[in-house]
């Protein structure tokens, strides 16, 4: 029996627990045991991105301690957190002979959710069903940070009954950017506007993402603009059977 460690992310844990549950269901259907280490909190990416390296290190050390003795690959429903584990951990502990090897060991075991399904398990059809149109927004860190793009697209292609339409300028950032959306709200607002108008042009009522950061940003913008489109994490689509 395969066991995976779920790093659920602070956003899913606190705002979107349904996404975490969907992920657990999917793995259970695949016969995979999902372990959730309760000591986990946040990966520390906000601190890292803001330049607060000391803070980011403290959180990373905590996270490494939580996962280094737990069995199985670490799977997370966030390209952004996967990117943080995979790349930023190494940057944080560069030149540190104690922590760098520990960070590397963790980073080598970490996968983004769709990446794990497709690349590690070889699964592209989960038997999911969906009625209607879907369009996909590739999160920056999923697409460019860890080069995961064909995996979520393949999974969506195989959602039965769904019509997948391409989002214009899909590769453009939605303007979340973690602290940037607070530090530079005016910039963030412009990109969000553009993302939403691109979404509208597809006529699709549902936007699919691989990251709760983009989800809460775009959905928050849609709600502010009183639009009806929904933003869903891909796990919730794939869990729809």
């Amino acid at each position: 029996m395969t066991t995976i460690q779920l790093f659920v992310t602070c956003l899913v844990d606190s705002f979107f627990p349904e996404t975490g549950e969907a992920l657990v269901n999917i793995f259970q259907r695949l016969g995979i045991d999902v372990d959730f280490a309760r000591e986990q909190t946040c990966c520390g990416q906000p601190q890292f991105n803001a330049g607060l390296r000391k803070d980011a290190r403290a959180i990373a050390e905590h996270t490494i301690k939580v996962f280094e003795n737990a069995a199985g690959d670490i799977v997370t429903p966030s390209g952004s957190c996967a990117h943080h584990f995979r790349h930023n951990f190494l940057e944080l502990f560069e030149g540190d002979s104690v922590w760098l090897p520990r960070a590397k060991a963790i980073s080598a075991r970490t996968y983004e959710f769709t990446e794990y399904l497709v690349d590690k398990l070889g699964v592209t059809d989960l038997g999911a069903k969906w009625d209607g149109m879907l369009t996909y927004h590739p999160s920056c860190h999923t697409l460019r940070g860890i080069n995961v793009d064909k995996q979520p697209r393949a999974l969506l292609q195989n959602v039965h009954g769904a019509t997948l339409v391409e989002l214009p300028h899909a590769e453009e950032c939605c303007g979340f950017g973690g602290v940037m959306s607070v530090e530079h709200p005016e910039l963030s607002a412009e990109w969000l506007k553009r993302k939403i108008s691109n979404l509208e042009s597809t006529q699709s009522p549902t936007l699919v993402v691989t990251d709760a950061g983009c989800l809460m940003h775009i959905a928050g913008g849609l709600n502010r603009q009183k639009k009806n489109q929904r933003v869903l994490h891909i796990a919730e689509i794939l869990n729809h059977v």
Partner: protein
Amino acid sequence: MVTFRQRIVESINNENLQIALDNNTERRLKGRAAAFESIPDWRTRRKRAHAVRADVIEHLDEYLAQFIAKNEENGVIVHRAKDAAEAIEIFLKIAKNLPQRKQEESLVSLRELRGKKILIAKSKSMASEEIALNHALEKENIEVIETDLGEYIVQLRHERPSHIITPAAHLRKEQVAELFHEKLGIPYTTDIPTLTATARKVLREVFLTADIGFSGVNFGVADTGSLCIITNEGNGRMVSTIPPVHIALMGMERIVPNLDDLALMLSLLPRSATGQKLTVYTQILNKPLDGQTRHLIILDNGRTRLRNSPLKESLYCIRCGACLNACPVFRELSGHAYIGKDNSIAPYPGPIGSVISPGLFGENYVQLAQASSLCGACKDACPVDIDLPKLLTRVRAGQSPVISDQLSVNSEGAGLTASTKIALQIYTRVATHPRLFSAAQKFAALGSFLLAPSSKWIRLPAFTGWGYSKDLPKFAGKTFRDRYVKKIVESERFASRLRRDIETPTSGDVGVHLDKVEQFTQELIALGGHVYQTKNVTKDVIEFLKSRNINKIHLEPHTLDESLLKEANIEFTHEPDDQIIAGVTNTRCGLADTGSVLVADGEGNPLRGSLLPEIHIAILRAENILPSLPNALDLVKDQRAAVFITGPSRTADIEMTLTIGVHGPKEIHVFVDDSNLG
């Protein structure tokens, strides 16, 4: 005092600017994507280019020593400047000790008109912006005229360039029309060819009468000492060919080891910058021309410090501007909004600017690095694969080099507002204590229930940042950790019956092999050039000249049958003459994949013959057409100077509209002599 954030808002609210920037972004992104289609191996090239640049920066001292020695051997006077002040001092010394110039009468009178001020014709150089050269020279009563159309426009407006490749990217044609009407006295017109022709006319005078020609350098080749300068308009050629003195200013990191590496860079730089396979003019300058003095100033200005800092990788940059075009921040701002704490405009904008501006000039510009979502579009666009998001986070982490008096300010969270910093530090404490974390979640859930008891969303006020354009989802009443119950999985894996059908991308079509002449012809015609295949060159050139009513040409010796020209009453001279409408030159080779021809310095001054006239007629032997630039570099090594010409002179400096014929010829006609092909 306007803050960076206020400047951002001004830019966003400036409708003209937003339209101009959208134009710039969309055309540049499309152009770049199309240009890279012709080199399907670009990912490999990019990795190689990264390795070449990494090696250069690692061994910069050795490469520079080699490069300088070669230049001195070539007769170039080399200077090194450790900072802006030194560079300017060197410049002034050169300007005050100009060699006596053989003056033609017409030129004397022009100079008198100008009151004997020293005149410098300047081609675009970011290094010169960095040291504020124009300002320093003007203070010394030296007149500097920018000759790149975009730079000329911003100089007339007393502005700084807003983009490192297209300096007037922030303007619309109506603004240029008004400017030219006001400053140059022409009737108001938004016709871009007319505006361009006006600049051509005004600046032609400048080229012909300038005491000094000034240019930047795109690449210095260590093992040959060559200076490579690329331009589209022809101003780079003018300033390095016509005035008696040429001064080239080069950032000390702009080295490539050899001509093969240069070819690699040239396959990436124009594609990334302007979506061209090659720029119109790719000059390789080895030795000064006859009667010309060439100075090369190699500028440090913080580069050594940067090289010894964690931002070292930013020195790999080849200044293509692709990261600016790809950047969603730049798209909203343009270069003028990137300001330091002292309100000064950062010399380099965009993602690379937000690294090297603090990297070279210190803490003043650190705040720029916080304006990024780290989306990575810049890294993706970079032709030398610089990890810009990583470097931005390093600037934020206070790792940009410390400049003496700013020691205390550089620290973690550089450029972050105080409130965000405190909030994140509190969050660190919470996130390193799981019980506290879980308690905080419950507290937040309760708080958000109180704020919005009947909605899934909380409307925060604008000052919170988040509330400016979006609502916040309510914290979940029951978090994932509360809901999670470990279930024992009993079902069999059914993954085995699931398909694995992700296709690995197939490499693009190998492409139909085209005959070299055919390919050369197609490429050049696509750029607006003309190609004629002939077995009787002189006869056909005469026929062409007659059809255009041209009876006098500047002719490179040993190019056409001169007795036939005489019979046909075509006057010719081997001396350059800026009144002549057509120049006929020989070529050393053609390049099939870009439609370029190589013209080298020699008897009869073909470099001028292919530059000053409105029409350039180039004679090319079919057997001399080579597949691509790397095959031609051996031909360049032993020339004094040479230029690859790729189509007619052009610009897109006004509203990205392609306009033909700026400073160089408006027309290029290549007569391909295939008599030896049988």
